[in-house]
């Protein structure tokens, strides 16, 4: 899952730094800045493939040495941790007080908090709890010249100055290197359950989603996966092409009530209930499920994230499928049906598409998403495929504001240069 040693996204690196304190990290940044060397921060290394191809060999700065829960205040529902802390470690500490950070990005055992914030990664739980931006209360960050700043704090309400947390979250390490993060945490629900149901079409899955919402259910997650995606999850077999996966977390009577309502919705919509998983078995399922979209083995793989509106989910999925047929790939579709986000993961086992052809096809798919009022990001593809394109596919006029932000915060363009939108 992590990139090969000595390479970032297939590109050679200049050297590596592994600071074990914030002071050392600041020194490492200053050293690189003094000789105008580009820098890429690396946490767990699970997202080193994300972004445009590199322009020059960077100094890779590992943040894994900055790992600790700094301050946990269960009766304030806040926790502060160093950026190199792995998500799993944090969850372990929180679970001791029956709390959790309601975020389930891929590879929680490896991914660090800094990486998750920088990449704004999320998972199925976002339907109920939002993304990391909704949980991030405070940051400490080192800027391109090594100066330190902080923003926010450990307060759930805070309008003291501009919301810098929102600026840094999702900025892919292009504005600074995060050192410490404070999050709002949640109580663990008393009980949880997951219902799996098979359907003949994605449309029927989407109808079930709308059915859940109009019935007033409050699911934690509503997912629609195709059978290929579901096969690797493997708790139950089906010959039907689409699977609805709904997760609930509440006090026990409220979970039972919702499961009963969902069973009715499934029956009405022509679905077939495959399985109901409760508590620990439900938790285990999601631990596996969260990482699947990122765990592809093959001669060639690609992952595209399409964000659209409800009415275009069907067409986006259809176009994903035709692309797979044309290029002879196996396609897994992981759709956050609630948030209207589709991840399409393509795997080629024995053959390999020509990079320009795959590039062209992905760009066509993206064009559709844009024409439907959405957008699409090529999250994973080999450097040969990404060569010469902006994987973010964002060229709205606001890009000019983003460029100005980059110039203000990193005037020499040393932090992860070229990898973000529009080559920022």
């Amino acid at each position: 899952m992590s990139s090969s040693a000595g390479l970032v996204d297939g590109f050679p690196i200049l050297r590596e730094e592994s600071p074990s304190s914030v002071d050392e990290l600041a020194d490492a940044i200053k050293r690189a800045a003094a000789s105008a060397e580009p820098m890429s921060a690396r946490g767990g290394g699970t997202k080193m493939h994300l972004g445009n191809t590199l322009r020059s060999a960077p100094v890779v700065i590992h943040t894994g040495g900055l790992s600790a829960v700094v301050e946990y205040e269960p009766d304030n529902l806040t926790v502060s941790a160093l950026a190199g802390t792995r998500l799993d470690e944090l969850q372990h500490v929180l679970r001791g007080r029956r709390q959790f950070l309601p975020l389930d990005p891929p590879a929680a055992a490896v991914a660090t908090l800094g990486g998750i914030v920088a990449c704004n990664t999320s998972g199925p739980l976002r339907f109920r709890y939002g993304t990391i931006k909704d949980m991030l209360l405070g940051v400490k960050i080192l800027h391109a010249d090594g100066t330190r700043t902080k923003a926010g704090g450990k307060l759930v309400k805070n309008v003291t100055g501009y919301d810098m947390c929102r600026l840094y979250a999702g900025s892919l390490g292009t504005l600074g290197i995060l050192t410490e993060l404070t999050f709002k945490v949640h109580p663990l629900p008393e009980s949880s359950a997951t219902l799996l149901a098979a359907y003949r079409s994605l449309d029927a899955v989407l109808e079930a989603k709308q059915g859940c919402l109009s019935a007033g259910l409050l699911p934690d997650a509503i997912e629609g996966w195709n059978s290929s995606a579901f096969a690797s999850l493997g708790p139950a077999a089906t010959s039907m092409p689409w699977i609805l996966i709904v997760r609930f977390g509440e006090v026990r009577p409220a979970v039972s009530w919702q499961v009963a309502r969902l069973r009715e919705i499934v029956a009405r919509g022509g679905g077939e209930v495959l399985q109901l998983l409760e508590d620990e078995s439900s938790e285990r399922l999601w631990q596996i499920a969260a990482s699947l979209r990122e765990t592809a083995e093959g001669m060639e793989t690609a992952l595209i994230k399409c964000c659209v509106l409800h009415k275009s989910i069907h067409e986006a999925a259809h176009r994903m499928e035709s692309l797979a047929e044309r290029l002879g790939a196996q396609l897994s579709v992981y759709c956050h049906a609630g948030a209207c986000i589709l991840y399409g993961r393509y795997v080629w086992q024995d053959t390999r598409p020509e990079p320009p052809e795959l590039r062209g096809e992905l760009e066509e798919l993206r064009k559709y998403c844009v024409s439907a009022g959405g957008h699409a990001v090529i999250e994973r593809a080999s450097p040969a495929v990404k060569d010469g394109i902006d994987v973010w596919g964002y060229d709205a006029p606001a890009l000019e504001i983003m460029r100005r932000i980059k110039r203000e915060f990193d005037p020499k363009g040393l932090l992860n240069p070229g990898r973000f939108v529009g080559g920022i």
Partner: protein
Amino acid sequence: MARGGNVAERTRSRLLFRDNPAAATDMTEAQNLKSEVLEELRAIAGPENLLVDPEQTLTYACDGFAFHRHTPDAVLLAGSRDHVVRAVRAAVRHRLPFVPRGAGTGLSGGALPRFGGLIIGLSRMKAILEIDLENRLAVVEPGVINLDLSKSAETSGYHFAPDPSSQMVSTIGGNLAENAGGPHCFKYGMTTNHVQALEVVLPSGEVVELGSRAADCPGYDLVGVFVGSEGTFGVATRATVKLARNPQAVKTLLTSFPTMKDACDAVSSIIAGGIIPAALEMMDRRMVAAVEASVNRAGMPLDAEAVMIVELDGLTAALDAQAEEIGKICRAHNCGELRVARDEEERATIWKGRKHAFGAAGRMSRDLYLQDVVVPRNRLSEVVVRLYEIADRAGIPLASLFHAGDGNLHPILLFDRSREGEEQRVLQAAYEMLRVCVEAGGTLSGEHGIGSEKNEFMGLVYSDEDLAAMKRLRAVFNPDELCNPGKIFPVRHCLYK
């Protein structure tokens, strides 16, 4: 950063903006706007929508924070995005400071035209353009009143979650400029958690779309940065906001405590106990007395030191167990009678009392200073005690209104500015309250914003480097600071002084 005493000196410079003796000067300035500028501004939305007569512009001299006043040179009541664009461009061309304004209910001077110039009024732009239930979104103009949006989505079972107490009058544009909160943001988050995309007229006069209607717009989160920028990053002319599903069931509990400490400890225990109420509000004895003496009386007990409103919402099947648990915790902290609202009418009465509490406080004294501070929830009881001590030492009566679940405190200082020295003592006490909260890990504002009220105190929480990072952002959006000048940052960090 060290900040000694001598607050009087610093606040004196803030008080220069009050227009008791200065009003006359303002009016002269207004008439000094060059006639060609006036002509240009009149042509934008028609002469009837350009106010220059001092009798009319005086209304715009302050917002809900009446300590600072400055009459604008002109007020343009925009009716469309095009009006806003032309107004901003005219202001830029003539180097005229300009300030966007919604309903003017802000409580930190966000809509104060601190250096005169042009107010761009947005309250006429009040069209709800689209309710998109399939995607749980609404597209609105900035002048739409907060509650009107919720009302228009109500029959479909949705609402706009941010619910500042001003929601009957405040606008969505103002809410997003200030990143407004409200009692229910304890569970549902602030305004920033509910904005998806914006159309913005930048301080340069360009129009841009920030964010996107679909999730996870690539690039820096410009929507997240714009929300809460207090009108210094431009004028939002259209907002795509998220709608929240109305809860299946709501349970509202009212109880009271013999001491503030008991009440605060109960709050901490509820939070530690794993229940997230939709709202967790508190009022002190003096505040309750004012509410109960007003037309919005809600039957709150008058003999307790603190009254608490706990609202639970969610699935019917979940609420009974939660209400029982809350009851247990409150009893463990010596609560008095615990009343559960029997029906929607009783619930509405309780909330009416709460939401009009600040108005009711107006009966208690000639002038009010409403402070907005926030502390970690596990520090509530110790901080609250110190707030009362500060008020006692200053000899100023204090009434309190807390979004306790968020650690967001609104101590209200009751005074009479006609009495010699009282205003200075109030400002000094308000400043000491900030210091106490910051020392406890809190900050300067939870929901009202910094504006012109607290900009000189930013050094209490931020270093010069921290502020420099924020200034970089200002330099991107508002490089010549014509857009709402003199806000958020201490004046030494501003071009307009």
